[in-house]
C-alpha cells in the first residue's frame, strides 16, 4: 500500500492506492475536520437518486471541473455551462456506472463536453490557448491512413503513459488532458517554462516513436 498526498482539495487528503482498491480517507488537518463527502457516499447519493448528489459534487469538484472546461473554452459562461452539463451527464450515467474516482469521472465528462463544444464553435470563436495545443500535437500526427481502432489507440496511450517517468507523465497529462497552460505547469513543478516545453517536446517525440514502433498511424 502506498500513500499519495494530494492538495487539490480545500482540506488535505491522502489517496490510498493498493491491491486494486482505491478509496479516499480524510485526514484531520488541525483546522477543522473536512466537511466534504467521500466519493463513495456521493456515488451512493447518485444511486439513490438523491439530488444532494449534484450539490455534493458541485461542492467537491465544481472548481475542478470548471478549471478543465475553462482551459478548453477560455470563457466564463461557457465553462459554467459545461460544468452544469457535467452534473446532468453524471446524473444520467450514475447508475448504471459506479465510479471509484469520482473526480476523474466528472473531469472526463467535463473535458468531453468542453472539447465537443469547442470543436462545434471553433469556426466562430477560436481560443488561442487551445489552438496552440492543437498545433503542438500536429508533429505527432501523420499524413497516412488513420487508425480506426480507437480502443487500440487508447490502450497505446495508457501503455505509453505507464512507461513514462512520473514527472514526465504528469506534465504530459496536465498539458494534453487537462490542457493546462505551460505557465501553470511550470509554477506547479517549480521549474521554468522552458524546462516544461523541453519535457513536452521530448515526450511528444517519444510518443510518436512509440506509436510508430507499434505501427499505429494517427
Amino acid at each position: 500500500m502506498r500513500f499519495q498526498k494530494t492538495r487539490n482539495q480545500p482540506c488535505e487528503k491522502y489517496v490510498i492506492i493498493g491491491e486494486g482498491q482505491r478509496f479516499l480517507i480524510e485526514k484531520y488537518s488541525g483546522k477543522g475536520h473536512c466537511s466534504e463527502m467521500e466519493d463513495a457516499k456521493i456515488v451512493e447519493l447518485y444511486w439513490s437518486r438523491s439530488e444532494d448528489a449534484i450539490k455534493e459534487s458541485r461542492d467537491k469538484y465544481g472548481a475542478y471541473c470548471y478549471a478543465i472546461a475553462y482551459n478548453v473554452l477560455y470563457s466564463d459562461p461557457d465553462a459554467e455551462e459545461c460544468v452544469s452539463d457535467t452534473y446532468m451527464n453524471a446524473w444520467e450515467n450514475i447508475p448504471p456506472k459506479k465510479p471509484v474516482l469520482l473526480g476523474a469521472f466528472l473531469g472526463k465528462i467535463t473535458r468531453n463536453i468542453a472539447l465537443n463544444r469547442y470543436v462545434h464553435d471553433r469556426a466562430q470563436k477560436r481560443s488561442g490557448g487551445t489552438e496552440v495545443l492543437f498545433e503542438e500535437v500536429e508533429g505527432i500526427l501523420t499524413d497516412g491512413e488513420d487508425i480506426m481502432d480507437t480502443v487500440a489507440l487508447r490502450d497505446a496511450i495508457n501503455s505509453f503513459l505507464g512507461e513514462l517517468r512520473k514527472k514526465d507523465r504528469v506534465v504530459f497529462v496536465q498539458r494534453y488532458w487537462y490542457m493546462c497552460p505551460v505557465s501553470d505547469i511550470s509554477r506547479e513543478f517549480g521549474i521554468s517554462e522552458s524546462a516544461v516545453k523541453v519535457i513536452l517536446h521530448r515526450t511528444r517525440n517519444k510518443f510518436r516513436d512509440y506509436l510508430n514502433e507499434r505501427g499505429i498511424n494517427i
Partner: protein
Amino acid sequence: MKPEELFFAMQDIDDEYVTEAMPKDKAAVKRKRFIKRMSWIAACLALFLVNVWLFLPPPSPAVPDISAFEGDPDYELIEKINSVVDHGEKQYKNNLAIICNKLGIGTLDGDEMVILPYEGEIKTAYGDAGEPGVITSERVKVVGDKIYYSSYNELDISEEIPQRVNGIHYGGELLTGEGNTVISVQAGDHIDVYDKETKKILSYVSSISGTLVTCATVGESLIVVTKWRIPTNGDAYSGDVLTPDIAADGNGFADLKNHSKVLPDNITSRYCITVTLFDRNSLEQKNAITVYSVSNDCTTAHITAENVFITTSEYERLSSDGLKYTKEGKTDIYRIAISGDKLEYRGDINIQGFIEDESYMDEKDGVLRVVSENRWLVYKKGLISDKFFDKEYGVSLYLISLGDEMSVVGSNDTSDTLFVSRIGEISADRILLNDLCVYTVGYDGDFVYIGTSLYPVQDSLHSFCQVDLSDIDDITFKNTKKMQWFTTLIDYGEYFVGVGDDEVEICVYKKSAEGGIDIESVYTYTDHSKRYEYYMDGLFIDRERMLLGLRLLTFNDKYEFEYEVFDISEGIPHKVLSIPCDGKGVAIYVEGWVYVFDDAGVRREWVGES
C-alpha cells in the same frame, strides 16, 4: 487524424493518470479568478476613492475646544475668532495640491513669486518718510557728544580720539535725539530708556506682544506699533488673550492698560495690530488700541504728529470669467488719532492697490495723501492649483480727508473713491497705464514725486513723475521723460535727489520758483561698477551739511561693500569720501567727520564742515 481527434482519443486514459495529474492550482482556478476579479474591483474602487480624495478640499484645521470659556464676557468674540482659518496662510485647492507642494511640483512660478507679497511681510521705508515733529527710528543716533549704535554700544566723540564706551548694549531701533535719554526698541518685544550720562536703564518694558512694525516719538510720547496673532492653542483662550500682554519693570505680564478693541463685523483673520502709547521717559504705558482681524499679507505703518496710519494690503478675488479669474490688490488703511497721551480710533478706508512702505503716505493739512500700486493678477483655473497667467499694473493717488472719519475727497472724481485718476491717463507719453508700477514715492509740500517702472523691470523703462497737488481742482502731472530708476527720493530743501539701485545713479534736481522740481535741471552721477543697497540703514542724509551717504555693493564676486559720501551743496553730486566696509556698514556725519561702523569696528574720515 485531426488534432482534436487525438484529444478526444485521450479522453479515456486511465483514471489513475487523470487523478495523479490533477493540477493542484487548477482546482482553485475558479477561486483564483474570483479573487483576481475582486482584486480588480477593489483596485478600481480604491483608485476611484483615491482620486475622489485627491480632488477634495483639505480638511479645515482642527478647531480647539473652547467650551471651558463659556460665560466669559468675550465668549462670542472668542467663538468667532476660534472658527477662523488664518487669513494669509496658504490655502490649498485640494489634497493633490498639498502632495504636489510637498514634492515641489506646481509651486508658484517665478513671475508670481516676484509680485505676491510674502506672508507676514512688514515693509520698512526705503524713502525719506519723516514727518514734522516725529522722530523715527534709526540704527545710528547722535545724542550730544555720543554716537549710539547697536553693535558698538556708544562712542564718545568728545575726545580727540573717539573712545568706545563699554557698558550698555543697545539693540534694535534707536529713537530719541533729545534730552538725556536714548530709547532702544528691540524687535518689538523690548523697550529700554537709558540715561546717557550714567549709562543706567531708567525704565524698561521687557515684553510686549507681537512683532515690531514701526516706532517713533511724538512729543513726549513713544508710539509702538506691533502685529500679533491670537493663539490657536485652546488653552490660550482666556479673556486676556484678546488683549496684548506687556511686562514692565519686572512686574510680570499684564494686559495693556486703557486698551480699546476695534472689531470688524466679520472676523476673517486671527491677526491683529496694536498701537501702544508710552510716556517716552518713564515708559509708563498710557493707552492702546488693537485692530482685530487684519490681513497678514503686507503691513506697514506711518506715524505723523497727529495720527498713526496702519495699512494692510492683500489680494481679493474678483468674479470669475470662465476659466480665468482676477485677483485685485486692495489696501485697508486704519487711522488712529494721537491726542496727548490718548489714542482714538478714527475709522478705516479701503483703496485699490498696494502700499509697499510708509513713504507712500504723507499727511498735510488734514489730508492723507497716498500713492498705491494697482495690481491685477489673472489666473487660469487648474485641477491642482490655479496658474498665474497675466498681470496688469497701474498707479493711483488718493487724497483722503481726515475729518471725523476718513473719506476720499476731490472734484474730478469719476468713481466713488478715486480722486486722482491713474497717472497714465494724464500722461500720454509712452507710459502705459497697465504697465506702470511704483518704485518709490516722495512728498515735498504740494508735490508728489513717483519713481515708476514699466514691467518687467528688466527692460529698464523707468520714469520719474511729478504731480502738483497745489490746486486739487486742477492737478497737473509732469514726467521727466528720463529713464531714471529711483528707489529712494530725498528732499534737500533747495534740491530734490533721487537715488537708483542696480547701477548707482544719483540725480539732483533743482527746485523751481513755482514749487516742484525743474525737470530740465537734473544733474546725474552714475557708477556702473557698484549698486546701491536701498535699505534705510544703507544711507545717511545730512540736510544741514548737504551730504548723502550711500552703502554700495561692488559688482564683483567678492561681495565687497563701500561707503561713499556725496556733497550735493552745489547741485552736483560730488564724491567726497569712499571707505571700504567690512560687511554691511552704516555711517553718520557729525561735525565734519563721517563715522563708519562695520564688522571691523569704527573709523572716521574728515570731510569738513560746511
